[in-house]
């Protein structure tokens, strides 16, 4: 008798909400600091259309940016994994770039890319890129010796080696990078929106913050969390669909 798949997550969520509610009630936390769940629900119900509209902006930025970062990260990782020299020359630069606080880059992005969705998408790309690169590189260099011997013995070209063996083998690890990246993607979009709050849930957070409407800010944050969870599990399902063999050879 296995419990259905939704039972556990359901209890997880209900438990958290309950603890949260209890904490706000027991310690008399003011909504200014941490609103109770009903405050948030009512904040949402005051203007659902607005919130969903802004959420949609955030979602599109996130998805486009994530897609670009995934493709670019994969490509770059393949190049880096192909040559030790290139890796030694470029990887430190990527690490350095990645450590530049995004918050302080955001204003520059607006200067360069204007007020539209482009600086936000670019920020998502910036923030997602690195995990994909690191995970893919690790995956590409984890090909078992026997399989790489096999393709070498067939005189496979560099390209064939990657397409037929290294990349498929790396996929489970690439998905680790994608999963980390997708949850950072949402954060990236929001950071950019906070810095130039004309659209998106980030704007909602900033605007409600300045007017001390903490419940509204939390409603936006809850929506963000939902988006993040949905995107994360979309990636996870893609993994399950694409890689049945990976689960079969592990125990």
């Amino acid at each position, binding site marked *: 008798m296995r419990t259905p798949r939704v039972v556990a997550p359901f209890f997880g969520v209900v438990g958290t909400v309950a603890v949260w509610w209890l904490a706000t009630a027991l310690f008399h936390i003011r909504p200014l600091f941490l609103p109770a769940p009903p405050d948030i629900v009512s904040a949402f119900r005051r203007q659902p259309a607005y919130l969903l509209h802004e959420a949609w902006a955030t979602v599109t930025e996130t998805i486009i940016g994530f897609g670009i970062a995934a493709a670019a990260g994969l490509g770059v990782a393949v190049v880096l994994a192909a040559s030790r020299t290139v890796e030694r020359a470029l990887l430190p630069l990527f690490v350095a770039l990645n450590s530049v606080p995004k918050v302080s880059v955001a204003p520059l992005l607006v200067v360069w890319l204007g007020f539209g969705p482009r600086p936000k998408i670019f920020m998502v790309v910036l923030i997602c890129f690195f995990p994909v690169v690191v995970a893919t590189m690790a995956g590409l260099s984890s090909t078992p010796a026997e399989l790489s011997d096999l393709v070498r013995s067939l005189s496979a070209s560099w390209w064939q080696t990657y397409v037929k063996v290294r990349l*498929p083998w790396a996929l489970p690890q690439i998905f680790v990078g994608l999963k980390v990246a997708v949850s950072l993607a949402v954060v990236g979009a929001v950071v950019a929106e906070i810095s130039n709050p004309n659209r998106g849930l980030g704007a909602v957070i900033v605007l409600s913050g300045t007017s001390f409407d903490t419940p509204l800010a939390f409603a936006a944050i809850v929506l963000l969390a939902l988006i993040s969870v949905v995107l994360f599990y979309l990636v996870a399902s893609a993994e399950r669909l694409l890689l049945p063999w990976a689960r079969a050879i592990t125990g």
Partner: protein
Amino acid sequence: MISLVEVSHAFRGRAGAVEALAEVDLEIGEGEFVAVIGRSGCGKSTLLRLIAGLITPSSGRVRVDGVMVTRPRPDVAMLFQQPALLPWRSVRDNVLLPAEILRLPRPAYAERAQELIETVGLAGFEKRLPHELSGGMQQRAALCRALLHRPRVLLMDEPFSALDALTREELAGELQRIHMDLRPTTVFVTHSIQEAVLLADRVVVLSPRPGQVRKIVEIAIPRPRSFGHNAHLEEVTEHVAELHELLLT
């Protein structure tokens, strides 16, 4: 066809170097079938890897077709000691891998793959993934893959080790037929002295680590040789006994 001149190979490791092969001299003619026997760990796999161009010798020269081997050649096929199947590909797609890589026409080779799969007794398992096969079935799939593109040189590292006695005999017969048909130059590592005698033109006996050529025994029995009782039983028995003796000392 294949020539090794004073080939030595040592593996360097953290706990010191292992001398795997020492001063091996060997000439193998075009279309010849050479079996290699020797104690476990004496360097048989290393020898095949050197010929395949997967590793380069610490000293000495390896030539195929008169050309120094520095990397793998597409006309040399290697069958590894481990099946080395790609876990995400079905049996059929694993077998077809060389055709894809060498860009051979798919339909023709798909047919050939199917024939090979049936020959080794894997019919019905074409669409299964490697982890759904037993050890011996995986080995047979790898055998099909090595035979697919009719290579000029066939390097086989214990291809039948995971097979039962009967399947082994059947496939050895099949291998002999293929060899008589297409005449690939074949280097065949085996643990079965019997098999070596029944398949090979010459049997190379390697001494224990470091592997050196102890003796090369000519097997002059005419082909096709059959695996059951046959007219040359005496010669076979004699050779087997001789090789057994050689391994012992």
